[in-house]
């Protein structure tokens, strides 16, 4: 097992590149230096997570933390969440839902499907930056299991 495989990779599924950049900046400010792999649509993110065959075998040996936006151009983040939590390889990877929706039913649905954290993006930028920085601090102390 090499060192690169042990390092946790943050998968960021966020269709808004500006948001992605701001999230990355603030996570970095919290002192998190893990690799961040951004995806702006669901299809390419799923391909990365489950491989071309869709089996999830490709993620074996990876340590993944998934940051997920629910409003994606090609699918809803809920679909990705369901697939991640249903796949035997990826189901233990922590998923942080970071989205603008604060609809109670949507939040319940995400937790029902196995989301680990649900964060509503604050509209106000100060609050937004603050929330992401705290999330980064949380990441710094979090244990992420390696995928079998």
């Amino acid at each position, binding site marked *: 097992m090499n060192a690169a495989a042990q390092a946790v990779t943050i998968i960021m599924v966020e269709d*808004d590149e500006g948001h992605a950049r701001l999230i990355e900046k603030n996570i970095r400010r919290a002192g998190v230096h893990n690799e961040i792999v951004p995806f702006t649509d669901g299809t390419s993110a799923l391909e990365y997570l489950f491989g071309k065959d869709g089996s999830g075998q490709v993620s074996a040996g990876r340590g993944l933390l998934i940051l997920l936006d629910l409003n994606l151009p090609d699918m809803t983040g809920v679909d990705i969440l369901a697939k991640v939590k249903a796949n035997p390889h990826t189901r233990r990877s922590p998923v942080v839902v970071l989205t603008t929706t604060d609809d109670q039913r949507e939040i319940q649905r995400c937790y029902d499907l196995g989301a680990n954290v649900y964060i509503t993006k604050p509209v106000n930028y100060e609050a937004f930056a603050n929330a992401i920085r705290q999330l980064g601090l949380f990441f710094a102390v979090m244990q992420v299991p390696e995928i079998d």
Partner: protein
Amino acid sequence: MPITSTAFARTTVLLLLAGALALFGIVAASLWLVERTNAYTEEVIAAQQTRAATSGLLTLMQYAETGQRGYLITQEAAYLEPYELARSRVPEQLGRLRALFAGHPAELATLDEIGGKVDAKMAELAESIALVQAGRTAEAVELVRTDRGKAVMDSLRDDLRELILRIDGGIRAAVDGTRSTADALSWAVILGALLIAALAGGSVWISFRYTRDLVAARQEVQELNFSLEERVADRTADLARANDEIQRFAYIVSHDLRAPLVNVMGFTSELEVCLATLQRYVETTEAAPSVEAEQAAEARLAAFEDLPEALRFIRSSTTRMDRLINAILKLSREGRRTLTAERIDMGAVLETAAASVQHQLQAGDGTITVEKPVPNIQSDRLAVEQVFGNLVDNAVKYLDPARPGRIVIRGREEGGRLVYEVEDNGRGIAPQDHERIFELFRRSGPQDRPGEGIGLAHVRTLARRLGGDVTVDSALGRGTIFRVILPRRADGPAARPVAAA
């Protein structure tokens, strides 16, 4: 062509009138014809009496002659009986005939002639009988043999027979007349019956057509009614759908507008961070001898004035936009919230609303009072609280600083609905703005108070969702009354959530 009711009434009345006339004609004709028949019958009866009297006279004359002959042969008084009978009756019979022929002068003349012949015959008979009684039988026979009596008798008989024949002609004519009047009567009745039948048929046909038209019209009305109900239901469904879409649209728009706004605000912050770095650099380098004074001044202007100004504008605009989007989002959430009706102590709700602004009022010597009692309501508590909270806030916000504020809240029942009033003596609202103030982001009067123009839009949305409405009554410079009209029980369809979340 459809028959109008007036035309129908007119035609029916005309037909009935024509029928009545026809009936009247038949009755009149029948009466007249019966009268004629009676006249003919009487004529026949009279003629028959005349005929009987005439033949009676002939019989009497023959009796007389028979009696004379018998007596002449036998000279026995018993054979004179027929003669005696005839002699006593003849004048009477002649008198009767004269009476019967009273209206016929020609026949009376004939009767005079007949009377002469009767007298002559009777005289001849009397003479011969007198000769027998005197015992001069041969002379009497000789008298008979002269044929004087026979000639008179023959002529008399002919006359009477002629008369009878004439009477018979009259009787035939009268009978013919009776028959022809009977025929005329039956024709009149048949024609009248046909006419009445035609009129009745006509009116039946018209009634039938009119009834058919009426039935068709009624059916049409029913169909229209039915399709009208369908159309109303369709429109209502359309409206509900449209309302639903608007709510969803507002939610999506406000929601999705926030995402780019986060970027604008985020990168503005990033720019500010960069600016700070830049400003530090400018400050440390501008004193360096290698830098031209002009360049240094330009850099300073950019770093300390132009850049901060641009960022300030971007920030203030995005902050405002953020507030507006949040307002829309709030309204749309309010529209999606499920309302639950419960019994609300309105006195307490209004007191709470009043108490929340009490400290603001005290600074300007103002007062706020709730005129009790106020009617209680069964409605959604949060919505009702928000309605009156907003109205009270508004009243306080727009008080006239020139006079102490007086705010009064009262409620009453009016026509089965509840009317609550929030009255103030504030600066008032210009008439042209009375409707505008309920629109989103619209405000009235000098824009010298904080606010986004959301409160009243919110109040109206809530009031309408509760099945009521809010109206304003205001005079510029004198004050304003907001009237909230609510149903006693908010359990109608309006209380249901507008859109399923």
